[in-house]
């Protein structure tokens, strides 16, 4: 553990599948002892400590409010409202000043769920088939306040913002993506990592992160009609 710096990230798991929780917990622990996972500078790697887990919405809300972890890994699909209910209730109880960040983790690729959770305040979305190294990287990124877009989420967002090019734009600041943001999203959807995007576009990784965070903000703040209608139009569950 000599290679970690600073206090470890406190991570909380919410998932109604005990097996899955156990699996993620074990993998994250293995990830920690295995070190940086290759492509990061060992000096910057922060440890990950799974401080708790919950299987139901009320249990999750109560424990998260009590523990105030850095990052909550949130299952999208659960009884009693799923991840979205957890997110909304924790936000309500902790207020907007809370530093608890949420990363959606789902077996479902349904656009409606994913966009819904992001709009409710999650900082990113990854599928459950993600490798443990990538999961650890995503947790660290979310903890730093950045957004995490899987290729699929990037595709969903491009689709949602491009669905109706001639739709009325109420607030250009929020209702449209800039060309640069679109480029970044396209590269994300093509499977590029942030580092590769930076190289491809001749910008810094930090700039890539800023673009992605801006997209996230637009996704959350925009009242664009299609964003709420879009998933339903695609008739996805």
């Amino acid at each position, binding site marked *: 553990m000599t290679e970690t710096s600073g206090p470890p990230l406190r991570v909380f798991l919410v998932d109604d599948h005990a097996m*899955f929780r156990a*699996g993620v917990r074990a993998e994250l622990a293995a990830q920690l002892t295995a070190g940086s996972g290759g492509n990061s500078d060992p000096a910057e790697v922060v440890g990950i400590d799974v401080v708790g887990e919950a299987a139901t919405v009320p249990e999750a809300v109560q424990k998260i409010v009590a523990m105030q972890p850095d990052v909550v890994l949130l299952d999208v*699909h659960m009884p009693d409202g799923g991840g979205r209910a957890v997110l909304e209730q924790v936000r309500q109880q902790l207020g907007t000043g809370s530093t608890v960040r949420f990363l959606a983790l789902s077996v479902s690729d349904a656009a409606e769920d994913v966009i819904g959770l992001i709009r409710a305040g999650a900082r990113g979305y990854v599928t459950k088939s993600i490798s443990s190294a990538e999961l650890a990287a995503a947790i660290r990124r979310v903890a730093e306040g950045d957004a995490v877009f899987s290729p699929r989420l990037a595709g969903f967002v491009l689709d949602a913002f491009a669905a109706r090019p001639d739709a009325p734009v109420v607030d250009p600041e929020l209702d449209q993506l800039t060309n640069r943001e679109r480029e970044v999203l396209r590269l994300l*959807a*093509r*499977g590029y990592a942030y580092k590769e995007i930076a190289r491809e576009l001749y910008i810094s990784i930090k700039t890539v992160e800023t673009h992605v965070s801006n997209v996230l903000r637009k996704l959350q703040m925009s009242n664009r009609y299609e964003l709420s209608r879009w998933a339903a139009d695609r008739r996805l569950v």
Partner: protein
Amino acid sequence: MNDTGPGGYGPARFDPPAVPVPRLHRRREGRLVAGVASGIAAHVGVPAVAMRVAFVVLLAFNGLGVLLYAVFWAVLPAGPEVGRAARGRMLGLLAFSALGIGVLIVRGLVGEAEPATAALGWLFALIAVGAGIIWHLTRGDQRQRLSGPAATVTSGQPWLNSVLTETGRRAYLLRFVVGGVLISVGTVGLAAFYAPVGGSRPVAVINGMVFALLALAGVGLVAAPVLWRMFGALREEREARIREQERAEFAAMVHDQVLHTLALIQRNAAPGSTAYRLARSQERTLRNWLYKPTGSPTEKLAAALEQAAGEVEDAYAITVEVVVVGDADTDDRVVALVAAAREAMVNAARHAGVPTVSLYAEVESGEPADGDGRVPGEISVFVRDRGVGFDPASVDAGRHGVRGSIVGRMERHGGRAEIISAPGDGTEVRLTLPLTPDRKEGSG
């Protein structure tokens, strides 16, 4: 699967036929009363006025005109609604009414009237009109009209609205009562005609009861098919809802349990192992069944690409992350594009030496079309891996397959293929296909 998945509203909308059906029907546009005359006229190919005059003149024969009209009204289905069915001009109606009265007066003047048979005709006409009113209550077009815009508001059970919207229900009841009264009067009249009332008091009372029963029986007889049809529709609708509900529950169960288990297996099995491949393939099949907006691989680009990716996954035990933005209908050029993309995936699976390949496709809109809507401008497909890569300059001869099956294929269909790779740096195949056929203007 032709249904729309849990929570989707069925496709059971009323679609007006695109081309006018050459079937005999009542015309909605330009009608004066119910569109019978104009409908028949259109079918036979004579002016509507002639047909109307014929009906009016037939009035002279014991009211045969009304009887025929009523029967046709009851029997003929309504034609497709073209715009708002404006009930005919008052003036025209007045003119034909005047003509009708004239005909009746003339008929009366000419004399030799047989009041008995004349009354008979009118009574039959009465019953027919009543039956017509009731039967048309539940015709599809009528339902559509009754529900009107309210149906779209409470889209849960569109069928219910036809009966339950406030105005709809009132109109429904009113029509039923009017129809019932007409039929009652008609039947009682007929009965009185054939069994003239007379004699002593008790007989009159019995006669009255018999008449009432007859009237009831008449109404019942006429209304029975209507009621039967209504209950049938209700039952079907209920069954459909139960089926839909069951499907939704089943889908949720499969989602929560089976898909989760399959994801777990993939996490714990080594990529490339049989267990991994089976779990992945099974997950894809289930997911398609649960979520996919209906689109056939033979019709839609997105579905075709996903199918191709699935085949490559199964054949080479890799994972292909498919992301498609937008969609397009397939034609032979799109099929070629999908084939080229498939070839690129196969190459990545064979040579890259990594378990994951990314496929990204985007359909970009081009110029607004002349008509309504926009025409798609270009399809781009990217197949990328982070594998060993190669030096494109050095392997041309060795990779003759790539030249033919990817680059050549794209060029034959007016598209382009670029292969970007460097040793140790992965490979990306970029395919672009203009969707609007090349006009050969400007640069190639």
